[in-house]
């Protein structure tokens, strides 16, 4: 390959990066729905997360890419895996019956609507080409500062609301965890009562 051609090919990495990342995302997504084993599905989900992180980097959103990997791949899917492993993966899922009435037709409708929306948006906005307005090309060092400035000024209310939501979730988790203890205690109390009954 000519050096100039080579340079031209890597100086404009948008399309190549996009196609590669999109293929990774799609492969992961197909893996999630086609794997029989839930652990393999979770791993495919991680692959999708990685593809999305690459797409973020391609858009100069470096910070979002890092957060995508740390939060989604590093924490949330790890929790999925914990739950799957603790509940036991040897049990096969029942695919035959619907748990909600009309679940499948509704899912199909939602899928078609989502696809239509994406196609509609694709008429005006493209992932490749022009980059996000908040992060000018070649100055991605300011990315984090810009996100911080936006979050703590323009989007302060949603940010704080999210924080409150998370605190509520934590409180609920703690409450539920402590309730189990009292339930055990009650159970033991009733056992003790039964023991007395036996004594009599």
């Amino acid at each position, binding site marked *: 390959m000519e050096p100039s051609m080579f340079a031209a090919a890597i100086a404009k990495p948008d399309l190549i990066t996009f196609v590669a990342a999109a293929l990774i995302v799609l492969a992961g997504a197909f893996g999630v729905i086609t794997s029989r084993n839930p652990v393999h599905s979770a791993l495919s989900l991680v692959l999708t997360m990685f593809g999305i992180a690459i797409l973020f980097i391609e858009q100069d959103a470096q910070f979002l890419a890092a957060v995508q990997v740390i939060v989604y791949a590093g924490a949330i899917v790890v929790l999925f895996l914990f739950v799957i492993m603790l509940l036991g993966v040897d049990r096969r899922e029942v695919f035959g019956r619907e748990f909600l009435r009309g679940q499948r037709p509704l899912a199909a409708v939602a899928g078609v609507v989502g696809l239509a929306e994406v196609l509609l948006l694709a008429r005006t906005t493209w992932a490749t080409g022009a980059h996000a307005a908040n992060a000018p090309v070649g100055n991605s*060092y300011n990315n984090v500062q810009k996100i911080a400035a936006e979050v703590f000024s323009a989007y302060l209310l949603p940010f704080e609301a999210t924080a409150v939501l998370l605190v509520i979730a934590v409180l609920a988790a703690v409450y539920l965890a402590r309730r189990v203890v009292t339930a055990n205690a009650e159970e033991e109390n009733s056992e003790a009562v039964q023991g007395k009954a036996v004594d009599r």
Partner: protein
Amino acid sequence: MGQDPLFLGHISIGVVIIVLVKVLVAFAALMVAVMLVIWFERKLISDMQNRIGPNRAGPWGLLQTLADGIKLFFKEDLIPDKADRFAFKLAPYLVLVPALVAFTIIPVGGVVHIFGHTVQLQVADPPIGILLLLAMSSISVYGTMLAGWSSGSKYPLLGAVRASAQMVSYEAAMGLSVAAVVLLTGSLSTRAIVTSQAGSFFHIFPQWNILRLGVVPFLIFLVAATAELNRPPFDLTEAEQELVGGYVTEYSSIRFALFFLSEFMNAITMSAVIVTLFLGGPDGPNLGGPSFIWPILWFLIKTGAFLFFYVWVRAALPRLRYDQLMDLGWKLLIPVALAWLLVVAGMQVSRVYGLVLFVIFAAAGAVLYRAITIGRETGSEAEVIMTFRKLPAADPIRPEGD
């Protein structure tokens, strides 16, 4: 603050070659370093235990690791019958690749000029910098977890659950102490973190983050990093008495070698990260000679000191119990790291704010400690009452049933 040429958009073939050479050199150096560090650890710990240690292969046993590596290569590769074959084969790479990638952000020296190009002595200087380390350490949790789960065996699963719970919990404390450094520097880039630590107070004390932040974040990071590495005294994941070999029990041959390799690579990377974040990285006095050599030497000396520290701790301290480990992480390190982060933030605004916050948190800490102590006492009382209540039912002397 320099920028990595890869992110500037002007990419020429020269830049690509420089990046490739950097990657190759870093890879080779890391491999040799791992070999030497394994030898160093074995030799040092045998000194501390009054033994001789490896002394057959090469001078002072230097080639022992190489011999072990060759042996592992030629051993039979076993996959357990009940293993999930795909995940079992994938797991070692999920540990190895993050270990390799995490090392790329470490600045090992200053800036060198070759053939008209300015080259930073670090593989990459991405804008997200130190976040890459956190991302990679959260990815390596997958390797550990999958290794244990896919083995299809009890002890590896228990080891993996312990290891991943430990890694996930200590990541929070680690992230909070990193946040203090980032807050002071105003940038995530490791290069910027290092350059901001150049200079000295009163021409005597180096202006390193360990002094600028107070020693607390450094200590928290050191403890959290040790836990993150699953090194003694936090190596419950491979507590032989309880769990055989932990999540690597079923691994043999080259796959085991990959786990072993990445464990030591991580130890090197973490030592280097501590040096970068808190001890000025390659910062140090220039004592004459070519100017590019001293930063590299200082970096190696500081990193070596931490590797020595890890071996020393392994020889000196007993292993923690699991509940002690979790208590230390969640009840001590995370609250202290969070409070110290807020104090540092206050200091950034003004001294008065910082000191006021410090006093408030010290008082709050004392109250919390008192509350926990009282809770423990009443908790143990409640437990005693419960056991007492249970006694009649569990009494084996009484006849069963009616």
